[in-house]
């Protein structure tokens, strides 16, 4: 056997051992986590990032995902709650007849066919190759057509000047904004802030992963458990799915 072959076999051995190590840890989806790309590589359509929200695990009254999102992205109150931007919000649902109630987070659904992108007159609203729907603030003119087009009320307009932005999350007056699926974290191979906060709180109600990969935890769950898209009748093919609604 040549040296090259030996090296290859050793590498395969290491890979198998690593995979076995990952599989041993119960409930930890490390294979899903290893999604970071090299900095010089563009996002590509082989991946489609999505979330699965399990509303049966989402606790009523808990807003850890909301506060984590707003802390991560520097979304602070301006003292005018009626116009404060809102990237994610908690919704309480109660069935009138049975009285059954449950709670879930609602945010940009990262549609495969996003209406916000369809209506944007400047091309500022766009979908990245990996399915993340974003606003390019450099060319957003603040017309708010996308806010009207979104069936999920996921977008907000920034009404006031900001001076304490996070270096990773530029935001300012006159543009529309929404959940970015924490794209700056996802590109580094980290989890979105809401997902991490939910895990830390012990609820594990939000799962992040690649919807295009049939072996990812999220795809497996969607393939085996009844999940729903909100307003599935609109055929938007949302990247955020819900379980238990």
């Amino acid at each position, binding site marked *: 056997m040549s040296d090259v072959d030996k090296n290859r076999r050793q590498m395969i051995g290491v890979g198998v051992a690593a995979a076995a190590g990952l599989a041993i840890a119960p409930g930890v989806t490390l294979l899903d986590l290893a999604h970071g790309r090299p*900095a010089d590589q*563009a996002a590509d359509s082989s991946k489609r990032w999505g979330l699965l929200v399990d509303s049966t695990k989402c606790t009523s009254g808990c807003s850890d995902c909301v506060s984590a999102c707003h802390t991560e992205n520097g979304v602070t109150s301006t003292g005018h709650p009626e116009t404060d931007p809102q990237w994610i919000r908690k919704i309480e649902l109660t069935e009138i007849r049975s009285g059954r109630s449950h709670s879930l987070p609602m945010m940009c659904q990262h549609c495969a066919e996003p209406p916000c992108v369809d209506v944007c007159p400047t091309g500022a609203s766009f979908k990245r*190759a990996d399915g993340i729907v974003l606003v390019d603030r450099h060319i957003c003119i603040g017309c708010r057509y996308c806010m009207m087009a979104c069936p999920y009320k996921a977008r907000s307009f920034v009404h006031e000047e900001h001076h304490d932005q996070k270096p990773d999350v530029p935001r300012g007056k006159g543009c529309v904004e929404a959940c970015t699926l924490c794209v700056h974290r996802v590109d580094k191979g980290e989890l979105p802030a809401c997902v991490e906060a939910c895990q830390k709180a012990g609820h594990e109600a939000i799962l992040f992963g690649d919807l295009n990969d049939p072996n990812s935890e999220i795809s497996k769950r969607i393939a085996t458990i009844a999940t729903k898209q909100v307003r599935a009748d609109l055929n938007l093919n949302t990247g955020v799915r819900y379980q238990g609604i």
Partner: protein
Amino acid sequence: MTTTWQTALKWLGAAFTAALLVGASINGASAHEGKHKIDAKGDKCVRETEFMRRNHMDLLKHQRNDTMRKGIRTTQFSLKGCIDCHASPVNNSVIGTNDNFCQGCHSYAAVKLDCFECHSSKPRPASPATPHPLADAQAGEMQAKAATSGEVSK
């Protein structure tokens, strides 16, 4: 006789004008340098100062489109990298007063600076730990050299 006088006068005039021009350019340069002292933590920018003065906006715009649209997050021409290096030790920012790196030059050149209406003007908290963009620049140059000489660096 008259022709000799005329020639002498011409020479004198030319010498005087030249002296004036040289003086003006020296004064101009010193005034400019004095007003716009370059505040930087690193030793060297990602490109020469002269190139950066004229072309930084193109580099930033190119990088902005790559990062925003494609998710390419190389650090060499990243605005965050500029800010980490050029933030003033006085107010920890690149804007605020005309002594600050970005604002000083932009107000001198009367060019509106709107990056910081959205982007943070302060360095990242963990900036000492982040590698200096020059490291990327050197790697890029090495790769470029390898590419031109036909070597494959990967």
